């Protein structure tokens, strides 16, 4: 028997590579695959970061807001260790976005530039 595919409908989904998929961002309490409160599209435009020594994850926009306050003293909200932001491997655009957030923070609060998530650039785990 010969089978001829007339149409092919592929569906993929992605999620951030974090130790526990059910965990929430400790600041906004939204899942990591969702966005911080200032963003509309999850993915590269609202990336995750991890603390170098404590390994706690946050939406980059959430933790940046916290670390920019004097009260934070540069500490992780979860464990009060020094929080050194590390961009997990594969999150290429995070650094660029951080520059944008810090540069904008004076007069454009909450108005992060949006880009459509692009599942093809390999920045997230892609599961088919």
């Amino acid at each position, binding site marked *: 028997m010969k089978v001829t595919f007339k149409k092919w409908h592929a569906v993929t989904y992605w999620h951030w590579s974090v130790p526990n998929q059910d965990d929430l961002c*400790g*600041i*906004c*309490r*939204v899942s990591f695959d969702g966005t911080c*409160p*200032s963003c509309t599209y999850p993915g590269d435009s609202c990336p995750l970061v991890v603390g170098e020594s404590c390994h706690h994850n946050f939406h980059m926009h*959430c933790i940046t*807001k*916290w670390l920019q*306050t004097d*009260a*934070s003293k540069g*500490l992780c*909200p*979860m464990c*009060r260790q020094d929080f050194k932001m590390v961009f997990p491997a594969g999150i290429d655009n995070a650094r660029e976005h951080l520059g944008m957030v810090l540069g904008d923070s004076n007069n454009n609060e*909450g108005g992060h530039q949006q880009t459509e998530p692009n599942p093809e650039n390999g920045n997230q785990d892609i599961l088919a």
Partner: protein
Amino acid sequence: MAYKRRLLKEMQTLLDLSIPGLKFIPTEDGINHWYVDINIVDNPIYDPAHAFRLEIVAGDEYPIEPPMVKFIGQEIPLHPHVYSNGHICLNILGDGWTPAQSIRSIALSIQSMLQGNTKNERPPDDERYISHAPQNPRSSGWVYHDDNV
């Protein structure tokens, strides 16, 4: 209020919670404004039947900034860190705050602070403080000097 969704989530949990001695009461002012009635059952300093009322107001910058928290009502609990105007000297309400804490965790901390209290007295500078204290305790410059109580 950027973090409105977080407050909505907290509201759902607070309404479902059952913690002995704590009763979370929503107000008509909105999801950022709560009363918490606290009963202390196992400390002879306090009448177990009496509920002390705590007022918690989360501002626009919550949870990046801590909420405003104070005791209100006729009877303010006696405690060396609680002033007679209801203001509380507690580091997590000021520079010990982190956004990982919540309305629930604050209420629990204050409940356990009263539960563990052994001194039936006001802070030594009570009179001086309340004579010039601002309305909002967050505007006071607190010094946290006593980790033992």
